[in-house]
């Protein structure tokens, strides 16, 4: 399939751009950071997005979704990334929602997917325990007992984990820490006794939480998918989520790059626009080239997922590795080129670098994905 947008996708892109422009001024990032609301995103705006069909883009129509693909999802996420729009897309749709779709029972799907698609419910996936993305490094244990499980452990960086209506929790039911086998998923309400949620304050002012499980008692019906077999559900979920996050990151770095270009064309020093200086021109040209490659890989990864190709995982990792590196380059260079003003909180450019840093890290940084690319390439 061609690596360009179809007419329908162009229309979607335009309507996403309009919506985002009208509803997510950049200043919302500062408001979220400095305001009192611990939720760190607007539930009302999320419901509006859901009304546009975005929350259900990739979900089947029988659950109230649009039944479209990752390519369309990428179009929307890229526009959201351009405005640093805070929303629970990644957590609710791409992580927890997709895991339910792939692993949930009929009842679980029927109960939650329509609510996700309509924007009525937000969900979070609690999986990470270590500083680096290493999804099978799970110490949180769910011990089987009379008719259920007892959950103990701690989860870090649970995206949108504060204020979520349901938590999907990855826990070890057998095997040693680091083993791919022996992991299981549980779906539970955040007010379950023994569970405590601490909101985290991150660089990008988005919602993330530290969640502690202290003898949390769960009935068997909370189990999602087969016992001990959660890794098989989560692997494709992480690929889809990485590809989506990648599209969002592409939007963020593109906006940062374009704002920097505008600055180079308007800022004057020594009686000339600073963009006329070759030292800056050449670096801008390099950033442009790098971004072109990030665009190509991102689009190809989304298409590979839609076409369920064998090389989809390899392409997702290639795309995430490359886009993360490009985001880092553009983040650094943009603040440098803005000079002193780029260091101030008043100027927006720093907000892009901060969000890019978090997105680079989330679901595996460039090093993680290059290593995975090497493994999948067979060397």
């Amino acid at each position, binding site marked *: 399939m061609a690596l360009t947008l179809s007419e329908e996708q162009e229309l979607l892109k335009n309507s996403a751009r309009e919506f985002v422009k009208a509803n997510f001024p950049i200043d919302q990032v500062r408001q979220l950071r400095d305001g009192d609301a611990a939720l760190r995103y607007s539930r009302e705006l999320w419901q509006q997005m859901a009304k546009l069909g975005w929350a259900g883009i990739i979900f089947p129509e029988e659950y109230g979704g649009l039944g479209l693909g990752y390519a369309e999802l990428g179009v929307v996420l890229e526009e959201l990334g351009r405005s640093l729009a805070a929303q629970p897309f990644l957590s609710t749709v791409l992580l927890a929602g997709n895991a339910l779709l792939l692993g949930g029972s009929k009842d679980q799907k029927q109960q939650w997917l329509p609510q996700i698609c309509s924007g009525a419910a937000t969900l979070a996936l609690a999986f990470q325990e270590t500083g680096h993305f290493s999804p099978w490094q799970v110490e949180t244990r769910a011990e089987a007992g009379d008719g259920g499980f007892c959950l103990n452990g701690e989860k870090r960086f649970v995206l949108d984990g504060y204020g979520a209506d349901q938590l999907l929790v990855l826990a070890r039911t057998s095997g040693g820490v680091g083993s791919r086998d022996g992991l299981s998923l549980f779906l539970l309400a955040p007010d379950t006794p023994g569970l405590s949620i601490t909101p985290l304050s991150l660089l990008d002012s988005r919602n993330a939480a530290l969640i502690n499980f202290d003898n949390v008692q769960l009935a068997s019906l909370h189990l999602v998918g087969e016992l001990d077999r959660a890794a098989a559900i989560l692997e494709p979920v992480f690929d889809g989520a990485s590809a989506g996050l990648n599209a969002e990151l592409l939007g963020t770095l593109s906006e940062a790059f374009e704002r920097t270009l505008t600055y180079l064309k308007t800022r004057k020093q020594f009686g000339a626009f600073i963009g006329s200086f070759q030292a800056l021109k*050449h670096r801008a040209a390099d950033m442009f080239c790098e971004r072109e490659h990030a665009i190509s890989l991102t689009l190809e990864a989304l298409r590979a997922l839609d076409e369920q190709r064998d090389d989809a995982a390899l392409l997702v990792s290639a795309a995430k590795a490359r886009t993360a590196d490009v985001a880092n380059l553009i983040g650094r260079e943009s603040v440098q080129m803005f000079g002193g003003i780029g260091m101030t909180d008043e100027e927006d450019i720093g907000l892009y670098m901060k969000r890019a840093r978090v997105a680079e890290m989330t679901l595996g940084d460039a090093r993680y994905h290059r290593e995975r690319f*090497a493994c999948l390439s067979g060397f």
Partner: protein
Amino acid sequence: MNKPDKLEQFRRQTADWIAQHYPPQLRHTPGASEEDPRQLKIHEKNWLTQLAEQGYLAPRWPKEYGGAGLTDEQVRVLNRELRKAQVRSPPISAGLSLLGPVLLEHGTPAQKAQHLPKIARNESVWCQGYSEPGSGSDLASLSTRADLQGDEFVVNGQKIWTSHADAADWMFCLVRTDREAPQHEGISFLLIDMTTPGISVAPIRLISGPSAFCQTYFDDVRVPKDNIMGQLGQGWTLAKQLLQYERQALGSIGRGDARRALTLPELAAQEIGVNAAGQIDDPVLRDQVAQCELDSLALRLTMSRSADEARAGRGSAHIASTLKLYGSELTNRRHELMISIRGADGIGWEGPGFTPAALRTTRQWLRAKGNSIEGGSNEIQRNVIAKRVLELPE
């Protein structure tokens, strides 16, 4: 039959054709001793003849000019099948890749009929007369002059980096036909028969050893007036268009040659070894190899995306600069890595004590330094991108 079916049928036919016509002797079998180079040359020549007869050396060109008259989609399928079959890639020659497309668009009917079929059959060798000793990056300052005397131009001056000039039948050449006009408007585009009296050629030795590059001298060389392509004084426009094709051709070098004896990961595995999991046994090197392989993939995708965009009418003519810049830097990085992987085996110049493959690595490493200089240095490409694509102020 609908369009995808037709394309699939074409794909199958092409794959069959390649399987039937590719000389098995050209296939690299790991571990096999290297075949006699003279024999290989013959097989290679046969393969080129087969491609030429199908019109596959110039697949886009109309059949009347020796092409295959394929659509862009079919050309993509053809290239993909050629890559998939890991056959020797068709040559990137000055005639096929650079002059041909410009001649198709701007040549007179007589010029097209005279030159295109021979180029498409690989029967005439062309060289490029662009750079001069005093005009490298600043190409438009060129001073080789062509003065119109009756029905002929009289050419005097000197060209450099004229690849294969010593074997070429023809040269396409930028000359100054008006010294009073502004720099860019006094240039014309001439097609010069290399057997014309007054032309002399001297090869250039590079840091990597003997090369295809030459210096070419013109001493009162008389060229028929009809050998001008385009209008008098409009050569620069054609020259720039041709440079785009050159950048594309140079950029495609970085995407990697399917028939290279060993891939980068294979070379690293062979020289450095692998661990129990089959991974290159040096995590730093493994990361560098991954970076190179990943970037090659990115470059390939950007190439096909730019082709898709061009088809959709959204292309930028200056994407060629991006591809050339990135492709040549990637090639350089790849060769740096290869020579470092070979260690002391990579410092041999010639003769005994080194394998032919190791010596090739060393020479290729040296030669690759030129990739970021030729066809407009990468600094020039960055200027082009900054000006034409990013529209940064002068």
